[in-house]
């Protein structure tokens, strides 16, 4: 940039490598964000619209919930007007969506409480469990997947593959029952139900969320391990690995620098696909372990016909999925830049 005599590219890059690289990385993050936003904004609009249309489709009314089955038509009409349900559909949607953007999800039909607050209370529980489940799932899946790939076609590989197949066919509630049976009823190691916030101490908090997180993590472990094993085995067959062996690079360096980096992408992408299933499975695990979390709130409000609460739950779950996918995409862009091309 400064000298005209020097060959253009190489010295310029050598002169300001950190600044250029930082700018480059920032640009890539922004590009990923922009591309993801272009996909997720329409997704969000469509999903919220479908969610909102649920009330009209269901034919449920706050009057039914509050006044019971034998309410007079006038009373029903009065309550519906009070909730603004006599206005045109699109006006209602606009009003609801406007509130949504301000974090206001309306009030519950059953007890008139603020839905955002209720969901916020449940999310603390659910996100603790889900984060721990993800940590367990990624760590265990990583260890199992890489071990199987490094010891491929030996008995270690077969044992791991068998174990992974076994846990992949166990639905979350079956795992939950097995864990309750083994650790809570049998060994009395962990409490079988309930939740203690982190503020009351780290150990009781961990004790209460370990079993639900384990139950939730099995699916993640299976998927990460399986995907990682496949892509690592495929990466080891590539010519550049042969080339690296020929050049005399150490096995550790080949694994960390070449194989792992190329094999990690699909496993990470699976993680993004797995998250909605994790949110869904929390409905079941929270039921098994008696946690008053997000999933339990979803189940309870759906069963009592509390439409605004259900809508709030669905919107929050969509936001969670979208944000999580965004994070996965950012990490993916960092680890395997090639994954950003041609998508």
């Amino acid at each position: 940039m400064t000298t005209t005599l020097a060959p253009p590219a190489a010295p310029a890059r050598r002169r300001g490598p950190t600044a250029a690289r930082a700018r480059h990385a920032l640009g890539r993050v922004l590009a990923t964000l922009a591309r993801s936003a272009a996909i997720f904004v329409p997704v969000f609009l469509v999903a919220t619209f479908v969610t909102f249309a649920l009330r009209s489709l269901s034919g449920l009314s706050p009057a039914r919930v509050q006044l019971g089955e034998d309410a007079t038509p006038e009373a029903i009409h009065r309550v519906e007007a009070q909730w603004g349900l006599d206005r045109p559909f699109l006006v209602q949607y606009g009003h609801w969506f406007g509130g949504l953007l301000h974090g206001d999800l309306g009030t519950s039909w059953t007890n008139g409480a603020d839905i955002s607050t209720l969901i916020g209370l449940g999310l603390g529980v659910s996100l603790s469990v889900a984060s721990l489940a993800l940590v367990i799932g990624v760590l265990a899946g990583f260890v199992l997947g890489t071990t199987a790939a490094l010891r491929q076609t030996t008995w270690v590989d077969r044992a791991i593959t068998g174990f992974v197949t076994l846990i992949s066919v166990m639905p979350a509630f079956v795992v939950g029952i097995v864990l309750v049976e083994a650790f809570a009823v049998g060994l009395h190691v962990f409490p079988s139900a309930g939740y203690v916030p982190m503020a009351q101490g780290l150990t009781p908090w961990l004790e209460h969320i370990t079993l639900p997180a384990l139950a939730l993590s099995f699916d993640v472990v299976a998927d990460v391990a399986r995907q990682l094993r496949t892509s690592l085995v495929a990466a080891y067959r590539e010519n550049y690995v042969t080339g690296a062996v020929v050049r005399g690079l150490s096995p550790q360096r080949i694994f960390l620098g070449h194989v792992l980096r190329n094999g990690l992408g699909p496993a990470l992408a699976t993680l993004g696909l797995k998250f909605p299933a994790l949110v869904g499975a929390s409905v079941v695990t929270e039921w098994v372990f008696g946690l008053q979390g997000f999933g339990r709130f979803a189940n309870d409000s759906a069963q009592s016909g509390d439409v605004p609460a259900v809508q709030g739950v669905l919107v929050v779950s969509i936001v969670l999925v979208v944000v999580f996918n965004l994070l996965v995409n950012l990490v993916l862009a960092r680890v395997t830049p090639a994954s950003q091309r041609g998508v």
Partner: protein
Amino acid sequence: MLRRVLSLPAGRIAVAILTVVALLAVLGPVLAPHDPLATSARTLAPGSGTHPLGTDYLGRDVLSRLLAGSRVSVLGSLEVALTALVVGVVPGILSVYLGRAFEWVTLRVVDTLVALPFLLFAVAVIALLGNGITQAMLVTGVLVSPLFYRVSRAATLTVARSQYVEAALIAGASVGWVVRRHVWVKVLPPIAVALAQTIGVGFVIVSSLTFLGIGVQPPEPTWGGLLASDLGYLSYQPWAPVAPALLIMATVWACNLLADAIRDVSGEAGRALVAHRRLRAGRRGRTEPAPTGGAS
């Protein structure tokens, strides 16, 4: 196709298990030794001659409830899979041929569906749209249809760009003829794989929903419901969840096994793969559908 699937040990095991489960669904209520709804004074009894799997907390025969409950699970998972098949495959193939606008719209719809946690949505929809398992299964089917969309679209794209299809079009063949004659054959194997997988997923969903007590009326026996009622009596009957849990797991496993077997034997390399599959390290690997421009 079936004969080639049966040539693999895994395929034989899978077909055997699924046949048994299908027979249970058809004959289950007839085979049940007792009335699955009849209560008795012998509550929480261990297994015996009259009650091979014991009785539950109301004294109902567990084996009879298990047999009578198989129909709900099997029908439910088939409903999920067939709905997903119809909803996913048709737009998947058409997205290649009906122009960019249709393609864009269907891709965005698929992105949306993938972002919805389907168990949560199924719970919400059943509760709001009436307490019936069928509605829930139809909705779940729509929510898992992206798999079929992607699979059939990816297969169609490969065929549509191949030279023999180009040659057929140049020779004057209509698009409809090409789809019927060439595309359909290539799309079928991946769809069969997806179908087997989706039936397994449907099984997990039906069991989860019935476990939560959603979609069925209380006295009606279901596999998930059996597990749910066992949960309250674990300290009295620690062995009670074993039978329903094993049934659910074996069925899901058989579906996955069948999907793997179909994948192994389909395609040009199928036969060679059958012979060499023991030597191949990556045989259990799941090949992700080709990226077709999704969010994930």
